[in-house]
């Protein structure tokens, strides 16, 4: 298998989907001649033409709204929001419309739509190019929310999203684009939506996480094993639907759970993970369910000082692990 970074994996997957399925097309800001601001769609315009690689006006609500209409008409649009921070103007179309089309029409209409967007910090994106948005969408029935962390999962889940008959929000952590490399199965590799992945098996405590933090957690775990502390790392991969079984299995296995995410703590995805455990496995635990998350401030700022102070680091994760292990 070829080794690729996450950006290349996404690019290859989009390319093959366009080549494979004529119902698939891409629309978004600067996806054409510019080839997307991260160069994910570089050269697509030449290969697939302006009908299928659509440079849209600067208007997110219509990027999603027009894609919804095309999906209702039988196409498989892949809409891009240039940065997750700019998905807010499309919130009505995603939450009020896409998520409810199948339900409100009792199955008469469907909305097989993929919305891709880069999210997260650590790349100097400042206050308005660093946000995590999963907690603003994972509560919404009718939507699926994916956050792959490895190139192989990015490919497998993106293929699954494109084949899915319902709207999928596909979150790509900016920091993983070039930082994270890995083997990527060739061909139409898919990963089932809703299944978590054990990034590292361990006995002493469980970290439940997703996205960039999966890698920081594994890194921290490799530190702790030197002291004989054996950490299991569960990567959710899919945030909605969420793999309850995998969560309960690891929680009851190690009896100690640390939830890690970059997004703000209060009302974040970690809250639901913790609540599932508190509801189903409370008496299997030897320690409180802890959460290590971004602080409850509006955003990480432009200065690297703010970014470093905001984002959980391998060091901070390792410290939290030691703490919990010692409980």
């Amino acid at each position, binding site marked *: 298998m070829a080794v690729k970074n996450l950006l290349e994996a996404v690019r290859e997957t989009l390319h093959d989907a366009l080549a494979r399925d004529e119902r698939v097309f891409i629309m978004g800001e600067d996806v054409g001649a510019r080839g997307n601001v991260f160069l994910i769609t570089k050269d697509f315009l030449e290969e697939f033409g302006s009908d299928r690689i659509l440079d849209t006006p600067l208007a997110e609500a*219509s990027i999603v709204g027009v894609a919804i*209409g*095309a999906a209702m008409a039988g196409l498989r649009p892949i809409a891009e929001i240039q940065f997750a921070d700019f998905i807010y103007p499309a919130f*009505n179309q995603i939450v009020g419309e896409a998520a409810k089309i199948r339900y409100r029409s009792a199955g008469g209409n469907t909305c097989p739509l993929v919305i891709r967007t880069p999210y997260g910090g650590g790349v100097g994106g400042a206050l308005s190019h660093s946000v995590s948005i999963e907690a603003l969408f994972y509560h919404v029935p009718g939507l699926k929310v994916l956050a792959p962390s490895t190139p192989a999962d990015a490919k497998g889940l993106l293929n699954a999203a494109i084949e899915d008959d319902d709207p999928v929000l596909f979150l790509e952590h900016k920091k993983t684009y070039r930082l994270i490399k890995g083997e990527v199965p060739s061909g139409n590799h898919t990963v089932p939506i809703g299944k978590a992945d054990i990034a590292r098996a361990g006995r002493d405590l469980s970290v439940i996480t997703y996205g960039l933090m999966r890698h920081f957690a594994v890194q921290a775990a490799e530190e702790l094993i030197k002291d004989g502390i054996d950490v299991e790392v569960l990567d959710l991969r899919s945030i909605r639907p969420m793999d309850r079984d995998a969560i309960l299995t690891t929680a009851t296995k190690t009896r100690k759970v640390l939830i890690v995410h970059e997004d703000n703590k209060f009302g974040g995805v970690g809250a639901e993970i913790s609540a599932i455990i508190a509801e189903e496995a409370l008496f299997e635990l030897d320690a409180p369910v802890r959460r290590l998350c971004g602080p409850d401030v509006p955003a990480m700022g432009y200065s690297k000082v703010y970014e470093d102070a905001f984002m959980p680091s391998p060091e901070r994760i390792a410290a939290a692990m030691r703490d919990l292990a010692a409980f």
Partner: protein
Amino acid sequence: MKSEPSVRETLPEGLTPERLRDMYYFMILTRVCDDRGFALNRQGKIPFAATCQGHEAIQVAAAFALRRGTDWIVPYYRDTCMALSFGVTPREQLMCLFARKGDIFSSGRQFPNHYSVPDRHIASISSIIAAHVTHAVGMALAHKMRKEESVVLTSFGEGSTSEGEWHEALNFAGIHKLPIVFLCENNEYAISVPQSMQMAVKNVADRAVAYGLPGVICDGTDPIASYVTVREAVERARAGGGATLVEAKCYRAMSHTTDDNQLTYRTPDEIEAAKKRDPVPRFEAWLADRGYLDERSAAELKARALAEVNEATDWAELQPLPTPEDLYTHVYAEGPLS
């Protein structure tokens, strides 16, 4: 009815005496359905109904100006007459009023008049104003990509044009010269808010230039003028000429819905005056004057409409309600998740 000798004249392309009578029939059928909704609400049999009284002419005209089986409509909640004229049956209309399980639009999930009949080319909308307009644009984009002949017609009120999404939809359609007709049914009010507090322009059609689109105005209470205007826009779209913004001037003859009370924001005089613009009796007189409709057949059609709606009402009322389990259907293709 006036007793002048009847005048024959050449009809606009696409219209025949037969079709004129059909248009008239759908207008009175709609009127009976509309009154029935409010009556059922007063009887406490249904919690809510909306009206399209005053809009019948433009709505039936729009439906007749389209090619059934080829073109699509993405109507809004006030388009009862457009829907009935485009294939929705009185039984289906009453089923949504009664929110029965068998309501084909939403199985009793949405308010009445939120149509959805894909096999008859009617797309689903929500109650969120103007959100469907970008969807209509996306459907037109799909038709263009697939090189299909289909034209999409989507409708909305003048208040809806204030929404940002409306702007984005027309801008997108203008850039890509999409086969779509934007139909604004301007009834002068958004619930209680008059047009003068909604926009600083006299005509919604004046907004078309901002998108490089033709903007045309018609008397939305005149079915013939409306038909001619919409048909021209539809055929321009089909011929590759791109989108048109059509503004049909009409009036909402009743309160916004059964939940509203128009007397809190408009005077009895204004309401009285508007009655003169009622499209139904005016079209009946027009047809009679020209000998397309005699009193007897008018009476027959009215009787038939009433009978149809009565039958549909009695039938629909007896249909089963949804069950609590139905709450969980159609969440995802795979069923409910998580």
